[in-house]
C-alpha cells in the first residue's frame, strides 16, 4: 500500500489519470481549461493560457487582525512553509474536522506500526492531531475557509503537565480563488489548492497520503516561479510607505562553473522611489476603481534594477535565474518556500500563491 502511495506522490499526472479511470469521481475540469472556456465566452477580458493574472489589486492594509484571532494568525506567520498544490477535495466537510483528527491520528499510528520510519527522539506513545478552521481568512464568497493541521507527539515518559511537542504543522488555503473555476466545480468538491507544510518530511508524506486516500485528491510540488517572485518583490515594495520593508533583497544564480550567486540588496526608500517611478500615472486609471498593479509595471521595476546593475558590472542579470526575494514582510524562494512575516499583507501574498497553485494543477 505504501508503495502505491509513493508512486501517487511522485507522479501526480499519471495518478490523476488512474483515478479518473478507476473511480470516476475525481475532478476532471482543470483551472486552465476553465479559463480558456470563460475567455472564449467573453467572461474575462484577456486571459491567455496558463499564466498568472497580469493585473492585480494593490495590497490594502488588511484589517485581518480584526477578523482572525491572534492565536490562529500566529500559526501561519513567521514559519517557513514548503508549498504544494492540491487538487479539489472530494467530500471534504469543514463540519467533520473533529472526526478527521481521529482518523489521521489512527492513520499515522497504523503506518508507524507497519514500520514506516517516523524518527522522533525518545519514547513516543502516540501523536495527537488537531484540525481547525481559520474563521475570517476567506476573502471572496467562494473561498473555502483555511484549515490548519498540527501534529503533537505524546511522550510516554512525559510528566502530566509537560506540554506536548509540536512535530509538524501545515495548512490548506484558498484566497481569492478564481470564481469561474470555483463555480465550475461539482458540489461535492472543496477547493483548497494551496498546501503549506513545516516539520519532518515523513509527516508531510503521511498527511498527504491520508488526504489522497480520504478525499481522492493529489499533491504536487509548487515552485514560486520567476514571475511570482517578481510580483512579490513589487507587491511588497508597494507596501513600504505603510509598513517598512527594511530592505529589498533579490538573489540570482548564474549558470557558470563554479556557480555564481548575486545578492542584490536595495535600500528600502530607494526601492520605493524606483517603484513609484515606474507606476502608471494615476490619472490614466479610471476613477473610482480600486488601485491596481499591472504586470507591465512589475517588469519595468525589475528591469530598472537590472539596468542599474548592468551599468556598473556589465553583467545582464537576465542571463541568470531569480532564486529568492525577501523583505521584512516576508521571503519567497524559487524552491517553493514562503515565509510571511507581517499579517497585514498576508492576504495579498496568499492570493498570488493560490493562483499559482491553481495553475500548477495537472490537466
Amino acid at each position, binding site marked *: 500500500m505504501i508503495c502505491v502511495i509513493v508512486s501517487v506522490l511522485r507522479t501526480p499526472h499519471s495518478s490523476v489519470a488512474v483515478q479518473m479511470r478507476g473511480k470516476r469521481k475525481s475532478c476532471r475540469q482543470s483551472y486552465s481549461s476553465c479559463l480558456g472556456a470563460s475567455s472564449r465566452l467573453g467572461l474575462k477580458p484577456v486571459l491567455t493560457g496558463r499564466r498568472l493574472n497580469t493585473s492585480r489589486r494593490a495590497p490594502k492594509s488588511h484589517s485581518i487582525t480584526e477578523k482572525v484571532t491572534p492565536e490562529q494568525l500566529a500559526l501561519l506567520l513567521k514559519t517557513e512553509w514548503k508549498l504544494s498544490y492540491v487538487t479539489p477535495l472530494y467530500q471534504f466537510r469543514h463540519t467533520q474536522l473533529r472526526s478527521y483528527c481521529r482518523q489521521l491520528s489512527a492513520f499515522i499510528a497504523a503506518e508507524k506500526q507497519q514500520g514506516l520510519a517516523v524518527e522522533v527522539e525518545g519514547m513516543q506513545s502516540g501523536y495527537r492531531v488537531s484540525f481547525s478552521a481559520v474563521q475570517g481568512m476567506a476573502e471572496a464568497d467562494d473561498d473555502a475557509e483555511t484549515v490548519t493541521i498540527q501534529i503533537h507527539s505524546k511522550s510516554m515518559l512525559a510528566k502530566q503537565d509537560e506540554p506536548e511537542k509540536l512535530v509538524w504543522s501545515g495548512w490548506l488555503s484558498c484566497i481569492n480563488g478564481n470564481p469561474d473555476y470555483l463555480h465550475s466545480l461539482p458540489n461535492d468538491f472543496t477547493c483548497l489548492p494551496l498546501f503549506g507544510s513545516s516539520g519532518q518530511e515523513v509527516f508531510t508524506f503521511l498527511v498527504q497520503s491520508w488526504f489522497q486516500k480520504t478525499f481522492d485528491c493529489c499533491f504536487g510540488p509548487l515552485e514560486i516561479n520567476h514571475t511570482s517572485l517578481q510580483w512579490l518583490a513589487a507587491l511588497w515594495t508597494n507596501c513600504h510607505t505603510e509598513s517598512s520593508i527594511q530592505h529589498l533583497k533579490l538573489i540570482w544564480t*548564474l549558470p*557558470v*562553473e*563554479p*556557480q*555564481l*550567486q*548575486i*545578492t*542584490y*540588496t*536595495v*535600500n528600502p526608500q*530607494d526601492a520605493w*522611489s*524606483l517603484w513609484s*517611478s*515606474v507606476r502608471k500615472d494615476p490619472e490614466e486609471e479610471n476613477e473610482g476603481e480600486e488601485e491596481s498593479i499591472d504586470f507591465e509595471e512589475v517588469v*519595468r521595476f525589475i*528591469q*530598472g534594477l537590472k*539596468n*542599474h*546593475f548592468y*551599468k*556598473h*558590472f*556589465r*553583467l*545582464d542579470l537576465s*542571463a541568470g535565474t531569480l532564486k529568492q526575494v525577501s523583505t521584512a514582510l516576508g521571503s519567497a524562494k524559487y524552491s517553493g518556500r514562503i515565509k510571511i512575516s507581517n499579517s497585514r499583507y498576508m492576504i495579498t501574498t496568499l492570493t498570488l500563491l493560490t493562483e499559482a497553485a491553481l495553475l500548477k494543477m495537472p490537466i
Partner: protein
Amino acid sequence: MDDTTKRLLHRLIRRTSTEMLKTTLGKWGRLTMAQRQSLDFTQSKSALTEELLTLCEKNGWTVKNVAELEMIHVIDNPNQGMWHAYRLMDPEDDACSVELTQFKERFKTHLSEVVRHVSVKTKKHTDEAVWIRIAWGDTFSRPNHLKPTYVVYHLQTPYVFVTSLTSKQKPLLSQALILSTRYQGFKDANLSGRKLTAIRDLLMKQYPLVFPTNFSSPVAEKDQTMSNPCIIKEQDGLEAKRLQMARGAFGDGVLPQLESAVYKLETKFKDQTNRIMTEREEPFRCVVKFTSTNLLESFRQCAASGIVSPPITPLFSSIPLKGKNYFALKDKTLGSSP
C-alpha cells in the same frame, strides 16, 4: 586540570580528523613515546577523547599547553574561519630591520601594557610568517582561551592577517602591532575570505598572474598559425576575443580561491529608460554581493562565455589587481574605499 583546559582539548579533538590529530599530537611532543604508542587511533572519537582527557589529567597539562596544541593545528589548517587582511602604513626608517626576537618581545610588552590580562603565544612558521595567538582578558577577568584571536604577520612586510577580532580588541592589537613593527598606521585592507592562503596570495601578489599586455594578442596569432585565415568564422573571432578578455583580466593560471566580493554602491541611478530616476539628484543605495566557491574563476567564466559584456569592468578586475574584495563606490570618487 581546570574546566577551560578540558573544554579546549575537547573542542579541538571534535574539530580535527583522527588522522590530523595524530600528526598534530606528534608535532606537539608532550606525550611520552609510550603514551603515543598506546593511543588507539582506530577507536571512536568519543573513546579517544576520554583517553586523551585522562592523559591530560595525568600529565598535568595546563591551558597554555593545550593552547599550543590548538595553535599547531591552526597553523597546519589555515583555511578555516574568516580571515581579514590589514595593512601597516607609513614605516619608520628602521621598520625594515625589525627582527623576529625583537618583534616578539616588543609585541608582548606593548600588548600587556594596554591589556591587563592577556596571554600571547608566538610561533614562527616556515614561510617567514609569525603566528600569534592572543587570548584576551580584561581588568577583571582572566584571558579567555576559548575565544582566541589569531594574527599572522609577515616580517618586514606591511601585511597582517587576522581572524576572530572584535571591534573592541582592534585598537589594542593595532597599537601593539604599530609599536612593535615600527610603522605609524594600521588600516583595513578591505580583503577577507575563509582561505588564508588565497587572501595572502592576492594581497602579496604571490600567484602566477599571467597578464597579456595590451599590445600583443597571442590568441589571434595562434589562430592564424593553426588554421587557414580564410575560414576563420566571425563566431570564432568573437569567442577568441572573449577568451582573451577573460585572460586579460584574470590571468591564465589557477586563481586564488576567494569566496565573495561586496560592492556598496551609492551612485546615481543609471537607466536611460527611466527619466524620473536618472534625473534624481540623490544616489541609489544598494549593496551587491557576489559569492561562489571560487569567485575569480566564476568571473573568468562569465567573461569567457559572454555573460559579462566587454570590456570587463574595473570593479571586477580590481579584485586581483588591487587585492581587495570590498568596495564602496560613490560618484566622482569611483573605485575608492572608505
